Structures are given as C-alpha cells and as structure tokens.
C-alpha cells in the first residue's frame, strides 16, 4: 500500500522534473530540475531495498555531478535563452520509432527471461551494504579497480583541460592588466 503510494508519487515527481529539465529554455531551471530529479530517483532505490545505491546516488549525483555542472556553468553564458532545433520531421519519426522499439523490447525482456536464476543471490541475514561489499570485493574486484583507474584518468583530464591559465585571477588584477591579457589573446586568435 505505502509502497504503491510512494512509487506513484515519486514516479510523477521524477517524470515532471526530467520533463522540465528537457524542455525549459533556461539553463538554471534545467540544472535545478535535474538535481531534484536525481534526488527523487534515489527514492526508488530505497523502495527497492538498494540502500547503498540510493546513498551513492545522492552523494555522487546531487553532490558531485551537480556541483561540477554548477561550477561549469560559471564559465558559460547561461543567462540568455537556449535556442532549440526546429521540429525536423525525420527526427520526430525516428524518435518515435526508436521509442516504440524500446518499449517493446523492455516489455518482452522479462517474459523471455522467465527462467533466469540469480548469479549472485542475496545473502540471508546481511544488510544491503554488506551484500554489496561481499559481491563487489570478490566477484567484481577487477572491474572495481578499473573503475578507480578510470576515475583517476577523468580527474587528470579535467584538471588538464579546464585548468589552463588558472593561475590568473580576474578579480585580483586591475583593469590595465586585464586589457593586456585580452590583447594578447586577440593576437593569439588572429
């Protein structure tokens, strides 16, 4: 009963938030709607008994990813309205076709796979976090380490790409120095 109420409530909220994030023309609205949608999605994980996944969802998405986007938006001009593609007929038709095929595949998948058995079944008498730890550090140890290396690569890539000329602070320079830097940049571009 409560599960059904929670499911429908959060389903409605999530769909509404993501719909706003996709359709709004203001980048800041899209960011906040996306952050809210991420939090609402973690509710599904808690309903499904995947407590650790829900906590990770809140920490990583609403904490790290959204903060990263918020900092990234400071570099861009986000105050003006976002231009949209005008409705191309072929795109709409292709979108509808892909969606329909996807729906069919998703509905057919559980029917096809009725006879599947659990590869790593839930452990009796252990919390979700313990179960996750047991599977993650035995069967999925090497993917876990590879993911760690991937995150390190991503961190270094982010620093190298975004960190150029970070030693210059626009707030500490006076106007003359900023003008000089601007002129230098113009020469570089030309």
């Amino acid at each position, binding site marked *: 009963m409560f599960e059904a109420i929670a499911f429908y409530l959060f389903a409605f909220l999530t769909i509404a938030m993501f719909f706003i994030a996709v359709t709004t023309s203001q*980048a800041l609205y899209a960011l906040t709607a996306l952050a809210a949608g991420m939090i609402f999605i973690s509710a599904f994980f808690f309903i499904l008994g995947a407590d650790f996944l829900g906590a990770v969802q809140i920490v990583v998405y609403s904490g790290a990813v959204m903060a990263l986007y918020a900092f990234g938006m400071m570099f861009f001009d986000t105050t003006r309205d976002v231009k949209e593609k005008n409705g191309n007929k072929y795109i709409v038709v292709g979108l509808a076709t892909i969606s329909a095929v996807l729906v069919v595949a998703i509905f057919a998948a559980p029917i096809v796979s009725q006879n599947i058995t659990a590869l790593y079944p839930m452990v009796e008498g252990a919390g979700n976090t313990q179960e996750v730890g047991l599977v993650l550090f035995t069967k999925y140890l090497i993917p876990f380490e590879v993911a760690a290396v991937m995150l390190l690569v991503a961190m270094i890539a982010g620093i190298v790409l975004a960190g150029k000329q970070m030693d210059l602070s626009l707030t500490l320079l006076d106007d003359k120095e900023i003008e000089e830097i601007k002129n230098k940049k113009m020469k570089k571009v030309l």
Partner: protein
Amino acid sequence: MMEIGLNHYLILSTILFTIGLIGVMRRKNLLLLFFATEILLNSVNIAFAAISHFYGDLTGQMFAFFVIAIAASEVAVGLGLLIVWHKRHGTIDLDSLATMRG
C-alpha cells in the same frame, strides 16, 4: 494496480529514457545535451535496481554502480572539453561543432 511489480519499474524506466532521448534529439546547447544524457543513464539505473530486487540478484546493483562511476567521469572530461571549446569559440552550440576545423 496497487501491487507494484517489475513491469511498473520497467515502464517508468522507459518513460524516463524516452524523455532523455527527446532531450538528446532537440537540444542544441551542449550543456543541456549533457543533462539529457544524465537522464538516460539514470533511467537505466532504475531498471537495473528493479531487476536486481525482483530476481534477488546483486549483479544489477553492481552494474548500476559502474554506470554511476562512468557518468561521473564523463561529466568531468566533458565539462573540461566544453570549457576549452567555450574559451576558443565563445559558444557551446552544436552548430559551432558542425565543422571540424578547430
């Protein structure tokens, strides 16, 4: 209706995936395109967690963790590239990417 089964979660996942797909198709701004890809990844995570719960198998949750890790690194690298592109061209519209002359 009141009994929430696997199909409910899969339908929700489909709806969210379609919303993300619409976003990917109609957004021109690269930053908002990234938002749409986040929606795609999250909708798949719901399906993974639901299947993991209803079949009593932890593999789905493991895959959801790795999807989250991939999403985090994608954001870091993608935003770095976007900042470089914005510094050079002053815009992050997709149209400015159409010609690959740098």
